[in-house]
Protein backbone atom coordinates (compact mmCIF):
# COMPACT_ATOMS: atom_id res chain seq x y z
CA UNK A 1 0.00 0.00 0.00
CA UNK A 2 1.67 3.20 -1.19
CA UNK A 3 0.76 6.41 0.62
CA UNK A 4 -0.54 8.78 -2.05
CA UNK A 5 0.83 12.25 -2.76
CA UNK A 6 -0.60 14.92 -0.52
CA UNK A 7 -1.74 12.44 2.09
CA UNK A 8 0.88 13.31 4.68
CA UNK A 9 1.19 16.78 6.30
CA UNK A 10 4.44 18.58 5.31
CA UNK A 11 6.13 17.99 8.68
CA UNK A 12 5.44 14.28 8.60
CA UNK A 13 6.59 13.98 5.01
CA UNK A 14 9.84 15.77 5.88
CA UNK A 15 10.38 13.71 9.04
CA UNK A 16 9.96 10.36 7.24
CA UNK A 17 12.24 11.55 4.44
CA UNK A 18 14.89 12.39 7.04
CA UNK A 19 14.39 9.01 8.70
CA UNK A 20 14.80 7.16 5.41
CA UNK A 21 17.70 9.23 4.11
CA UNK A 22 20.60 7.61 6.00
CA UNK A 23 19.52 4.13 4.91
CA UNK A 24 19.12 5.17 1.29
CA UNK A 25 22.45 7.02 1.30
CA UNK A 26 24.10 3.97 2.85
CA UNK A 27 22.48 1.80 0.15
CA UNK A 28 23.67 4.18 -2.55
CA UNK A 29 27.22 3.97 -1.14
CA UNK A 30 27.02 0.17 -1.28
CA UNK A 31 25.88 0.36 -4.89
CA UNK A 32 28.63 2.83 -5.81
CA UNK A 33 31.28 0.64 -4.12
CA UNK A 34 29.95 -2.52 -5.78
CA UNK A 35 29.96 -0.85 -9.20
CA UNK A 36 33.46 0.54 -8.70
CA UNK A 37 34.79 -2.93 -7.91
CA UNK A 38 32.87 -4.72 -10.66
CA UNK A 39 31.56 -2.34 -13.34
CA UNK A 40 29.36 -5.04 -14.88
CA UNK A 41 27.42 -5.45 -11.61
CA UNK A 42 25.29 -2.46 -12.59
CA UNK A 43 23.60 -4.77 -15.11
CA UNK A 44 22.74 -7.30 -12.43
CA UNK A 45 21.53 -4.54 -10.10
CA UNK A 46 19.42 -3.04 -12.89
CA UNK A 47 17.89 -6.44 -13.56
CA UNK A 48 17.23 -6.86 -9.81
CA UNK A 49 15.50 -3.47 -9.72
CA UNK A 50 13.39 -4.34 -12.76
CA UNK A 51 12.46 -7.66 -11.16
CA UNK A 52 11.41 -5.90 -7.95
CA UNK A 53 9.20 -3.53 -9.95
CA UNK A 54 7.66 -6.31 -12.00
CA UNK A 55 6.95 -8.54 -8.97
CA UNK A 56 4.15 -6.18 -8.00
CA UNK A 57 2.43 -7.08 -11.29
CA UNK A 58 2.13 -10.72 -10.24
CA UNK A 59 -1.23 -11.88 -8.97
CA UNK A 60 -1.63 -13.69 -5.68
CA UNK A 61 -4.67 -15.63 -4.55
CA UNK A 62 -6.61 -13.61 -1.99
CA UNK A 63 -9.50 -14.25 0.32
CA UNK A 64 -11.80 -11.77 -1.28
CA UNK A 65 -11.42 -13.29 -4.72
CA UNK A 66 -10.14 -10.03 -6.10
CA UNK A 67 -6.49 -9.95 -7.05
CA UNK A 68 -3.75 -8.93 -4.68
CA UNK A 69 -0.09 -8.43 -5.33
CA UNK A 70 3.01 -9.35 -3.36
CA UNK A 71 5.10 -6.55 -1.87
CA UNK A 72 8.26 -8.41 -2.86
CA UNK A 73 10.36 -6.64 -0.25
CA UNK A 74 11.15 -9.86 1.63
CA UNK A 75 12.16 -11.75 -1.50
CA UNK A 76 14.40 -8.87 -2.54
CA UNK A 77 15.97 -8.70 0.93
CA UNK A 78 16.83 -12.41 0.98
CA UNK A 79 18.24 -12.28 -2.56
CA UNK A 80 20.00 -8.93 -2.57
CA UNK A 81 20.43 -7.95 1.15
CA UNK A 82 18.74 -4.99 2.90
CA UNK A 83 21.30 -2.22 2.18
CA UNK A 84 21.07 -2.74 -1.58
CA UNK A 85 17.29 -3.11 -1.30
CA UNK A 86 17.10 0.30 0.41
CA UNK A 87 18.52 1.86 -2.76
CA UNK A 88 16.80 -0.40 -5.31
CA UNK A 89 13.52 -0.19 -3.43
CA UNK A 90 13.65 3.61 -3.44
CA UNK A 91 14.34 3.67 -7.19
CA UNK A 92 11.42 1.31 -7.72
CA UNK A 93 9.15 3.48 -5.54
CA UNK A 94 10.13 6.56 -7.52
CA UNK A 95 9.31 4.70 -10.75
CA UNK A 96 5.99 3.55 -9.33
CA UNK A 97 5.15 7.13 -8.41
CA UNK A 98 6.04 8.49 -11.84
CA UNK A 99 4.99 5.60 -14.10
CA UNK A 100 1.95 4.27 -12.25
CA UNK A 101 0.99 7.19 -9.96
CA UNK A 102 1.29 4.79 -7.02
CA UNK A 103 2.66 6.78 -4.11
CA UNK A 104 4.07 10.26 -4.51
CA UNK A 105 7.11 12.51 -4.34
CA UNK A 106 6.65 14.08 -0.89
CA UNK A 107 5.53 10.70 0.45
CA UNK A 108 8.51 8.92 -1.15
CA UNK A 109 10.46 9.07 2.13
CA UNK A 110 7.61 7.54 4.13
CA UNK A 111 6.99 4.84 1.54
CA UNK A 112 10.71 4.07 1.28
CA UNK A 113 10.90 3.81 5.07
CA UNK A 114 8.18 1.16 5.23
CA UNK A 115 8.80 -0.73 1.98
CA UNK A 116 12.48 -0.32 1.17
CA UNK A 117 13.88 -0.23 4.71
CA UNK A 118 11.74 -1.73 7.49
CA UNK A 119 10.22 -4.49 5.32
CA UNK A 120 13.55 -5.79 3.99
CA UNK A 121 15.31 -5.51 7.37
CA UNK A 122 12.53 -7.35 9.22
CA UNK A 123 12.43 -10.01 6.50
CA UNK A 124 16.17 -10.43 6.42
CA UNK A 125 16.34 -10.44 10.22
CA UNK A 126 13.69 -13.18 10.38
CA UNK A 127 15.57 -15.19 7.76
CA UNK A 128 18.86 -14.94 9.65
CA UNK A 129 17.18 -15.61 13.01
CA UNK A 130 15.60 -18.79 11.65
CA UNK A 131 18.90 -20.08 10.36
CA UNK A 132 20.65 -19.10 13.60
CA UNK A 133 18.29 -21.23 15.70
CA UNK A 134 18.66 -24.12 13.27
CA UNK A 135 15.30 -23.93 11.51
CA UNK A 136 15.22 -25.10 7.90
CA UNK A 137 15.91 -22.79 4.99
CA UNK A 138 12.26 -23.06 3.95
CA UNK A 139 10.95 -21.87 7.33
CA UNK A 140 13.37 -18.95 7.04
CA UNK A 141 12.10 -18.03 3.59
CA UNK A 142 8.49 -18.27 4.69
CA UNK A 143 9.17 -16.12 7.75
CA UNK A 144 11.16 -13.57 5.74
CA UNK A 145 8.47 -13.01 3.15
CA UNK A 146 5.42 -13.05 5.37
CA UNK A 147 6.93 -10.98 8.18
CA UNK A 148 8.39 -8.36 5.86
CA UNK A 149 4.98 -8.03 4.24
CA UNK A 150 3.32 -7.60 7.67
CA UNK A 151 6.00 -5.22 8.95
CA UNK A 152 5.56 -3.00 5.92
CA UNK A 153 1.84 -2.71 6.60
CA UNK A 154 2.25 -2.09 10.30
CA UNK A 155 4.67 0.77 9.56
CA UNK A 156 2.31 2.21 6.94
CA UNK A 157 -0.57 2.08 9.43
CA UNK A 158 1.57 3.85 12.04
CA UNK A 159 2.53 6.51 9.50
CA UNK A 160 -1.10 7.09 8.57
CA UNK A 161 -2.26 7.01 12.17
CA UNK A 162 0.32 9.57 13.26
CA UNK A 163 -0.64 11.85 10.40
CA UNK A 164 -4.38 11.59 10.90
CA UNK A 165 -5.17 11.05 14.57
CA UNK A 166 -8.72 10.08 15.34
CA UNK A 167 -10.68 13.00 16.89
CA UNK A 168 -11.87 10.80 19.76
CA UNK A 169 -9.40 7.89 19.89
CA UNK A 170 -6.26 9.95 19.17
CA UNK A 171 -3.16 8.62 17.49
CA UNK A 172 -3.47 5.14 18.97
CA UNK A 173 -7.10 4.95 17.98
CA UNK A 174 -6.40 5.83 14.41
CA UNK A 175 -3.40 3.51 14.15
CA UNK A 176 -5.69 0.77 15.40
CA UNK A 177 -8.26 1.81 12.84
CA UNK A 178 -5.80 1.65 9.94
CA UNK A 179 -4.37 -1.63 11.22
CA UNK A 180 -7.88 -3.04 11.49
CA UNK A 181 -8.78 -2.08 7.95
CA UNK A 182 -5.60 -3.53 6.48
CA UNK A 183 -5.33 -6.58 8.75
CA UNK A 184 -8.39 -8.14 7.15
CA UNK A 185 -6.71 -8.34 3.79
CA UNK A 186 -3.07 -8.28 4.89
CA UNK A 187 -2.76 -11.30 7.15
CA UNK A 188 -3.97 -13.79 4.52
CA UNK A 189 -1.87 -11.99 1.93
CA UNK A 190 1.22 -12.24 4.12
CA UNK A 191 0.66 -15.98 4.41
CA UNK A 192 0.21 -16.24 0.65
CA UNK A 193 3.39 -14.25 0.07
CA UNK A 194 5.30 -16.53 2.44
CA UNK A 195 4.07 -19.62 0.57
CA UNK A 196 4.91 -17.97 -2.74
CA UNK A 197 8.48 -17.42 -1.53
CA UNK A 198 8.88 -21.07 -0.57
CA UNK A 199 7.61 -22.23 -3.97
CA UNK A 200 9.76 -19.71 -5.85
CA UNK A 201 12.92 -20.83 -4.04
CA UNK A 202 11.98 -24.49 -4.66
CA UNK A 203 11.94 -23.78 -8.40
CA UNK A 204 15.06 -21.62 -8.29
CA UNK A 205 16.97 -24.31 -6.41
CA UNK A 206 16.36 -26.56 -9.41
CA UNK A 207 16.70 -24.22 -12.37
CA UNK A 208 19.16 -21.60 -11.11
CA UNK A 209 21.36 -23.17 -8.42
CA UNK A 210 24.44 -21.30 -9.66
CA UNK A 211 22.73 -17.92 -9.47
CA UNK A 212 21.56 -18.67 -5.93
CA UNK A 213 25.10 -19.68 -4.96
CA UNK A 214 26.55 -16.52 -6.44
CA UNK A 215 24.09 -14.55 -4.29
CA UNK A 216 25.40 -16.40 -1.24
CA UNK A 217 22.32 -18.62 -0.66
Amino acid at each position, binding site marked *: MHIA*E*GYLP*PLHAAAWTLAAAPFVVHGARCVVREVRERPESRLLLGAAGAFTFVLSAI*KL*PSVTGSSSHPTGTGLGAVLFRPPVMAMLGTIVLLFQALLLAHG*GLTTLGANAFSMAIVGPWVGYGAYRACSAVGLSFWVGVFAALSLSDLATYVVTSVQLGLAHPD*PTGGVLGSIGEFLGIFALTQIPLAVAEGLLGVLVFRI*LARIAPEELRSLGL
Partner: protein
Amino acid sequence: MSAPALDTAAWASPWRRYSPGDKVLLSLGLVISALVLPPWPASGLVTAIALGLILGPGRVPPHLLLRAARGPAAFIVLGTVSIAITWRTSGFGPTVTSESLTAAASTLSHAVAGTSAVLLLAATTPMTDLLSWARRRGVPEAVVDVAGLTYRLLFVLLESVSAVRSAQTARLGYTSRRATLRSASGLAAATLTRAFDRARRLETGLAGRGFEGVMRTVGEQQSSSRSFELWTFASLALVVAVSLGVA
Protein backbone atom coordinates in the same frame (compact mmCIF):
# COMPACT_ATOMS: atom_id res chain seq x y z
CA MET B 1 0.03 -5.22 -17.21
CA SER B 2 0.12 -3.21 -20.42
CA ALA B 3 2.54 -0.33 -20.95
CA PRO B 4 1.99 2.24 -18.18
CA ALA B 5 -0.33 4.99 -19.44
CA LEU B 6 1.85 7.74 -17.97
CA ASP B 7 4.95 6.48 -19.76
CA THR B 8 3.14 6.42 -23.09
CA ALA B 9 1.81 9.92 -22.47
CA ALA B 10 5.23 11.29 -21.44
CA TRP B 11 7.02 10.12 -24.59
CA ALA B 12 4.34 11.62 -26.81
CA SER B 13 3.89 14.92 -24.97
CA PRO B 14 4.90 18.16 -26.72
CA TRP B 15 6.09 19.34 -23.30
CA ARG B 16 9.01 16.96 -23.65
CA ARG B 17 10.93 19.83 -25.21
CA TYR B 18 11.08 21.65 -21.86
CA SER B 19 13.93 20.86 -19.52
CA PRO B 20 13.11 18.26 -16.85
CA GLY B 21 14.46 20.64 -14.20
CA ASP B 22 11.87 23.27 -15.13
CA LYS B 23 9.08 20.73 -14.91
CA VAL B 24 10.31 19.36 -11.58
CA LEU B 25 10.29 22.91 -10.22
CA LEU B 26 6.74 23.52 -11.42
CA SER B 27 5.42 20.19 -10.23
CA LEU B 28 7.07 20.26 -6.80
CA GLY B 29 6.14 23.92 -6.40
CA LEU B 30 2.49 23.05 -6.93
CA VAL B 31 2.66 20.01 -4.61
CA ILE B 32 4.20 22.04 -1.80
CA SER B 33 1.78 24.96 -2.24
CA ALA B 34 -1.11 22.53 -1.98
CA LEU B 35 0.37 20.99 1.16
CA VAL B 36 1.26 24.12 3.14
CA LEU B 37 -1.59 26.44 2.15
CA PRO B 38 -5.13 26.07 3.50
CA PRO B 39 -6.98 23.43 1.46
CA TRP B 40 -9.53 25.91 0.21
CA PRO B 41 -8.86 27.44 -2.29
CA ALA B 42 -5.20 26.37 -2.72
CA SER B 43 -5.91 22.70 -3.39
CA GLY B 44 -8.66 23.59 -5.84
CA LEU B 45 -6.40 26.02 -7.69
CA VAL B 46 -3.50 23.57 -7.83
CA THR B 47 -5.76 20.80 -9.11
CA ALA B 48 -7.20 23.09 -11.77
CA ILE B 49 -3.80 24.37 -12.90
CA ALA B 50 -2.23 20.88 -13.01
CA LEU B 51 -5.10 19.20 -14.84
CA GLY B 52 -5.47 22.18 -17.16
CA LEU B 53 -1.79 22.02 -18.11
CA ILE B 54 -1.85 18.22 -18.55
CA LEU B 55 -4.86 18.24 -20.84
CA GLY B 56 -4.16 21.61 -22.49
CA PRO B 57 -0.60 22.43 -23.55
CA GLY B 58 0.66 19.01 -22.34
CA ARG B 59 -1.81 17.40 -24.75
CA VAL B 60 -2.21 14.18 -22.80
CA PRO B 61 -5.19 12.20 -24.14
CA PRO B 62 -7.97 12.15 -21.48
CA HIS B 63 -8.32 8.36 -21.62
CA LEU B 64 -4.63 7.96 -20.69
CA LEU B 65 -5.05 10.39 -17.80
CA LEU B 66 -8.10 8.49 -16.57
CA ARG B 67 -6.25 5.19 -16.75
CA ALA B 68 -3.33 6.66 -14.84
CA ALA B 69 -5.57 8.14 -12.13
CA ARG B 70 -7.34 4.87 -11.35
CA GLY B 71 -4.48 3.55 -9.19
CA PRO B 72 -4.17 6.41 -6.69
CA ALA B 73 -7.94 6.90 -6.66
CA ALA B 74 -8.45 3.61 -4.82
CA PHE B 75 -6.01 4.57 -2.08
CA ILE B 76 -7.38 8.09 -1.75
CA VAL B 77 -10.96 6.88 -1.39
CA LEU B 78 -10.08 4.17 1.13
CA GLY B 79 -7.86 6.52 3.10
CA THR B 80 -10.46 9.29 3.16
CA VAL B 81 -13.19 6.97 4.36
CA SER B 82 -11.02 5.72 7.19
CA ILE B 83 -10.38 9.28 8.33
CA ALA B 84 -14.05 10.21 8.05
CA ILE B 85 -15.07 7.30 10.23
CA THR B 86 -14.30 7.58 13.91
CA TRP B 87 -14.81 5.25 16.85
CA ARG B 88 -16.92 6.65 19.67
CA THR B 89 -15.43 6.18 23.09
CA SER B 90 -18.88 5.60 24.53
CA GLY B 91 -20.95 2.99 22.76
CA PHE B 92 -19.82 0.77 19.92
CA GLY B 93 -19.45 0.90 16.20
CA PRO B 94 -18.21 3.47 13.76
CA THR B 95 -19.64 6.92 13.43
CA VAL B 96 -19.07 10.15 11.57
CA THR B 97 -18.57 13.52 13.25
CA SER B 98 -18.36 16.95 11.69
CA GLU B 99 -14.80 17.17 12.97
CA SER B 100 -13.79 13.90 11.28
CA LEU B 101 -15.60 14.92 8.10
CA THR B 102 -13.67 18.20 7.94
CA ALA B 103 -10.40 16.35 8.45
CA ALA B 104 -11.32 13.88 5.73
CA ALA B 105 -12.32 16.62 3.30
CA SER B 106 -9.10 18.54 3.80
CA THR B 107 -6.97 15.41 3.35
CA LEU B 108 -8.96 14.48 0.27
CA SER B 109 -8.36 17.86 -1.33
CA HIS B 110 -4.65 17.76 -0.46
CA ALA B 111 -4.30 14.30 -1.95
CA VAL B 112 -6.18 15.15 -5.13
CA ALA B 113 -4.17 18.36 -5.66
CA GLY B 114 -0.84 16.71 -4.85
CA THR B 115 -1.51 13.73 -7.09
CA SER B 116 -2.57 16.00 -9.97
CA ALA B 117 0.64 18.01 -9.63
CA VAL B 118 2.78 14.85 -9.69
CA LEU B 119 0.81 13.60 -12.70
CA LEU B 120 1.77 16.83 -14.46
CA LEU B 121 5.45 15.91 -14.21
CA ALA B 122 4.90 12.20 -14.85
CA ALA B 123 2.74 12.65 -17.94
CA THR B 124 5.07 15.09 -19.69
CA THR B 125 8.59 13.88 -18.81
CA PRO B 126 10.03 10.53 -19.90
CA MET B 127 12.11 8.79 -17.25
CA THR B 128 15.29 8.92 -19.35
CA ASP B 129 15.10 12.76 -19.38
CA LEU B 130 14.72 12.82 -15.60
CA LEU B 131 17.64 10.45 -15.15
CA SER B 132 19.99 12.52 -17.35
CA TRP B 133 18.90 15.58 -15.37
CA ALA B 134 19.63 13.75 -12.11
CA ARG B 135 23.07 12.82 -13.45
CA ARG B 136 23.82 16.46 -14.25
CA ARG B 137 22.60 17.46 -10.78
CA GLY B 138 25.24 15.29 -9.12
CA VAL B 139 23.40 12.07 -8.31
CA PRO B 140 26.14 9.38 -8.34
CA GLU B 141 26.76 7.87 -11.78
CA ALA B 142 26.40 4.32 -10.50
CA VAL B 143 22.95 5.01 -9.07
CA VAL B 144 21.73 6.71 -12.26
CA ASP B 145 23.13 3.85 -14.37
CA VAL B 146 21.35 1.26 -12.26
CA ALA B 147 18.11 3.26 -12.41
CA GLY B 148 18.42 3.61 -16.20
CA LEU B 149 18.94 -0.12 -16.64
CA THR B 150 16.04 -0.81 -14.28
CA TYR B 151 13.84 1.37 -16.46
CA ARG B 152 14.93 -0.33 -19.71
CA LEU B 153 14.70 -3.87 -18.33
CA LEU B 154 11.39 -3.45 -16.57
CA PHE B 155 9.66 -3.20 -19.93
CA VAL B 156 11.47 -6.28 -21.21
CA LEU B 157 10.37 -8.16 -18.08
CA LEU B 158 6.83 -6.73 -18.08
CA GLU B 159 6.37 -8.04 -21.59
CA SER B 160 7.50 -11.48 -20.56
CA VAL B 161 5.37 -11.45 -17.39
CA SER B 162 2.25 -10.66 -19.35
CA ALA B 163 3.06 -13.27 -22.01
CA VAL B 164 3.77 -16.01 -19.46
CA ARG B 165 0.69 -15.07 -17.46
CA SER B 166 -1.59 -15.25 -20.46
CA ALA B 167 -0.14 -18.65 -21.40
CA GLN B 168 -0.81 -19.84 -17.84
CA THR B 169 -4.34 -18.45 -17.97
CA ALA B 170 -4.98 -20.30 -21.22
CA ARG B 171 -3.91 -23.52 -19.54
CA LEU B 172 -6.35 -22.87 -16.68
CA GLY B 173 -3.60 -21.70 -14.33
CA TYR B 174 -5.75 -19.25 -12.40
CA THR B 175 -8.93 -21.23 -11.92
CA SER B 176 -8.41 -22.19 -8.27
CA ARG B 177 -6.54 -20.75 -5.31
CA ARG B 178 -4.06 -23.63 -5.41
CA ALA B 179 -3.46 -23.26 -9.13
CA THR B 180 -3.04 -19.49 -8.73
CA LEU B 181 -0.33 -19.91 -6.11
CA ARG B 182 1.44 -22.49 -8.26
CA SER B 183 1.19 -20.24 -11.34
CA ALA B 184 2.33 -17.16 -9.44
CA SER B 185 5.43 -18.91 -8.09
CA GLY B 186 6.29 -20.31 -11.53
CA LEU B 187 5.85 -16.84 -12.98
CA ALA B 188 8.02 -15.17 -10.33
CA ALA B 189 10.79 -17.77 -10.66
CA ALA B 190 10.74 -17.61 -14.46
CA THR B 191 10.88 -13.81 -14.33
CA LEU B 192 13.81 -13.81 -11.93
CA THR B 193 15.87 -16.26 -14.02
CA ARG B 194 15.05 -14.24 -17.10
CA ALA B 195 16.20 -11.07 -15.36
CA PHE B 196 19.56 -12.70 -14.57
CA ASP B 197 19.82 -14.03 -18.10
CA ARG B 198 19.06 -10.61 -19.57
CA ALA B 199 21.74 -9.00 -17.39
CA ARG B 200 24.31 -11.56 -18.49
CA ARG B 201 23.51 -11.22 -22.18
CA LEU B 202 23.44 -7.45 -22.02
CA GLU B 203 26.83 -7.52 -20.34
CA THR B 204 28.33 -9.39 -23.31
CA GLY B 205 26.48 -7.19 -25.77
CA LEU B 206 27.80 -4.02 -24.17
CA ALA B 207 31.34 -5.35 -23.86
CA GLY B 208 31.34 -5.66 -27.64
CA ARG B 209 30.38 -2.01 -27.89
CA GLY B 210 33.37 -0.90 -25.85
CA PHE B 211 31.85 -0.87 -22.33
CA GLU B 212 34.74 -0.59 -19.92
CA GLY B 213 33.04 0.64 -16.79
CA VAL B 214 31.62 4.01 -17.82
CA MET B 215 28.08 4.28 -19.10
CA ARG B 216 28.15 7.63 -20.84
CA THR B 217 25.86 8.59 -23.70
CA VAL B 218 24.86 11.70 -25.58
CA GLY B 219 21.12 12.21 -25.52
CA GLU B 220 18.44 14.86 -25.72
CA GLN B 221 19.35 18.49 -25.26
CA GLN B 222 16.71 20.44 -23.39
CA SER B 223 17.89 23.72 -21.95
CA SER B 224 15.73 25.46 -19.41
CA SER B 225 13.40 28.09 -20.74
CA ARG B 226 13.26 31.52 -19.11
CA SER B 227 9.61 31.99 -20.07
CA PHE B 228 8.65 28.58 -18.66
CA GLU B 229 10.27 29.55 -15.38
CA LEU B 230 8.50 32.93 -15.37
CA TRP B 231 5.15 31.21 -15.93
CA THR B 232 5.97 28.78 -13.10
CA PHE B 233 6.68 31.59 -10.63
CA ALA B 234 3.61 33.52 -11.78
CA SER B 235 1.29 30.54 -11.24
CA LEU B 236 2.76 29.75 -7.86
CA ALA B 237 2.48 33.41 -6.82
CA LEU B 238 -1.14 33.42 -7.95
CA VAL B 239 -1.92 30.32 -5.88
CA VAL B 240 -0.28 31.82 -2.81
CA ALA B 241 -1.86 35.25 -3.21
CA VAL B 242 -5.37 34.00 -3.80
CA SER B 243 -5.15 31.48 -0.95
CA LEU B 244 -3.86 33.99 1.57
CA GLY B 245 -6.33 36.58 0.35
CA VAL B 246 -9.27 34.26 0.88
CA ALA B 247 -7.95 33.07 4.22
